[in-house]
């Protein structure tokens, strides 16, 4: 009972611990550019109470959601096809290997030259950031699908496209969702960095404007807000994921002793 309460409270305790270290560190350093945790937390409501800031943050989230969804629609089918066709894989794999290590935000200035500083450029950067891990994991997931499962489907009369959608996709789903989870975190990171480079609106814009003006409590408050968004999105995604792939969860697999 005690252990269960403790494990429930653990994430909260971890956050409080981090804030305490922050508080102590900032008091020790005592410089203006590193406000205490209490000062930063106090600045959070003033940001969330400001209409302009909320609109900016929602704008960021809107761009992120659209780019994330578009990336999944592109990356999952591509990854699955790569996993099942040697031809498709040998064509796209080198492209993937070249683009994977490039920091997507580094492409931002070039993309801005083509698409301007508006939504499209930012969404493209997020799209690229999300696509790569999702392609990679979908590829791995599809490659690992047992051949005999596909044969069983073929014997039941499933055509090749049907096998792709009704066998490869569900069989690879746990791996695909692992890629999506990485993609979600990357979406948040590229969202902020894209707004840092193309300063026009958004959560990243609030952060870096505050930094320019030396409003350090706002800077750190924004970091807290972005961090909280990350935790919230990840927790929501994890909930969805565990519902979708309940059948593959470990701890589920205590086989019954029966012939």
């Amino acid at each position, binding site marked *: 009972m005690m252990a269960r309460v403790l494990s429930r409270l653990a994430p909260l305790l971890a956050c409080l611990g981090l804030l305490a270290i922050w508080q102590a560190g900032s008091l020790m350093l005592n410089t203006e550019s590193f406000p205490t945790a209490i000062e930063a937390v106090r600045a959070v409501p003033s940001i969330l109470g400001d209409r302009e800031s909320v609109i900016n943050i929602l704008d960021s989230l809107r761009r992120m959601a659209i780019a994330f969804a578009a990336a999944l629609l592109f990356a999952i089918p591509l990854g699955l096809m790569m996993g099942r066709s040697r031809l498709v894989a040998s064509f796209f794999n080198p492209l993937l290997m070249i683009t994977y290590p490039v920091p997507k935000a580094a492409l931002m200035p070039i993309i801005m030259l083509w698409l301007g500083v508006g939504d499209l450029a930012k969404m493209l950067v997020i799209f690229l950031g999300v696509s790569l891990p999702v392609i990679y994991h979908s590829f791995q997931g599809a490659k690992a699908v*047992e051949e*005999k*499962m596909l*044969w*069983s489907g*073929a*014997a*039941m*009369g*499933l055509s090749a496209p049907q096998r792709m959608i009704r*066998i490869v996709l*569900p*069989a690879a*789903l746990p791996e695909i969702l692992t890629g999506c989870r990485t993609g979600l975190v990357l979406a948040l990171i590229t969202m902020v960095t894209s707004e840092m480079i193309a300063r026009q609106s958004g959560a990243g814009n609030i952060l870096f404007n505050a930094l320019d003006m030396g409003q350090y409590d706002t800077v750190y408050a924004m970091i807290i807000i972005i961090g909280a968004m990350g935790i919230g999105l990840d927790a929501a995604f994890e909930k969805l994921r565990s519902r979708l*792939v309940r*059948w*593959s969860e470990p701890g*589920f*697999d*205590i*086989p*019954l*002793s*029966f*012939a």
Partner: protein
Amino acid sequence: MIEIDHVSQIFRTSGRQAHLALSDISLTIEDGAFVSILGPSGCGKSTLLYIVGGFVSPTEGVARVKGRAITGPGPDRGPVFQEFALFPWKTVLGNVMYGPRQQGVKAAEADAQSRRLIEMVGLKGFENFYPKELSGGMKQRVALARTLAYHPAVLLMDEPFGALDAHTRTRLQNDLLNIWERDRKTVLFVTHSVDEAVFLSDKVVVMTRAPGRIKQIVDIELPRPRRRAELLLDPRYQKYVVEIERMIDDTSEDGLRP
């Protein structure tokens, strides 16, 4: 009727080496017969089964079912694999219903049929379990029910009990015979166990070590229905087992010679 007509299979291994897996196999399997293909591992016996299934196309020769050349898999030939190959995201019921639903059987009807089949293979009460929650023997029961559900004329069984412990294996052999004796489907059964082949089959096809050739076909003239306890004491059964084991020993030695 299944006809395997001068079938050879060559696999290209890495390093451009050609590996002759099957060499000039000809075999006819009558409707309703239970035929085992028996041989040492690596003799291409599973490959022969995959060719009949349409999962692998032969390098030379042709396989026919009901007089028509096999060009791909189809619901007239239902496989059961050693690896079970169940759909892990589907429950037991979902797996068994999959084939009938694909064939256009109405949901309510497929549901009722599948529940009957699940009961027949001894898994009543496990309809809503996921494969991960089941033991190996139970998984193979589900796999058998899943294949029977779409009424294939031919069952293709690829060492189906090879991954199971001895006790489970015996129980599944008995249950398979009971089920088979009810509707007498054609069964092509790949195994490396002599006991299993003799106990189950009308005909045992003994193969040589790679390249796989047919060494001899043994007709098993034992009465049916077969009871394991009676059979083990039957001198005719023992004679078949010893005779076939000797053949296999010979083929193994052939393989060892340079």
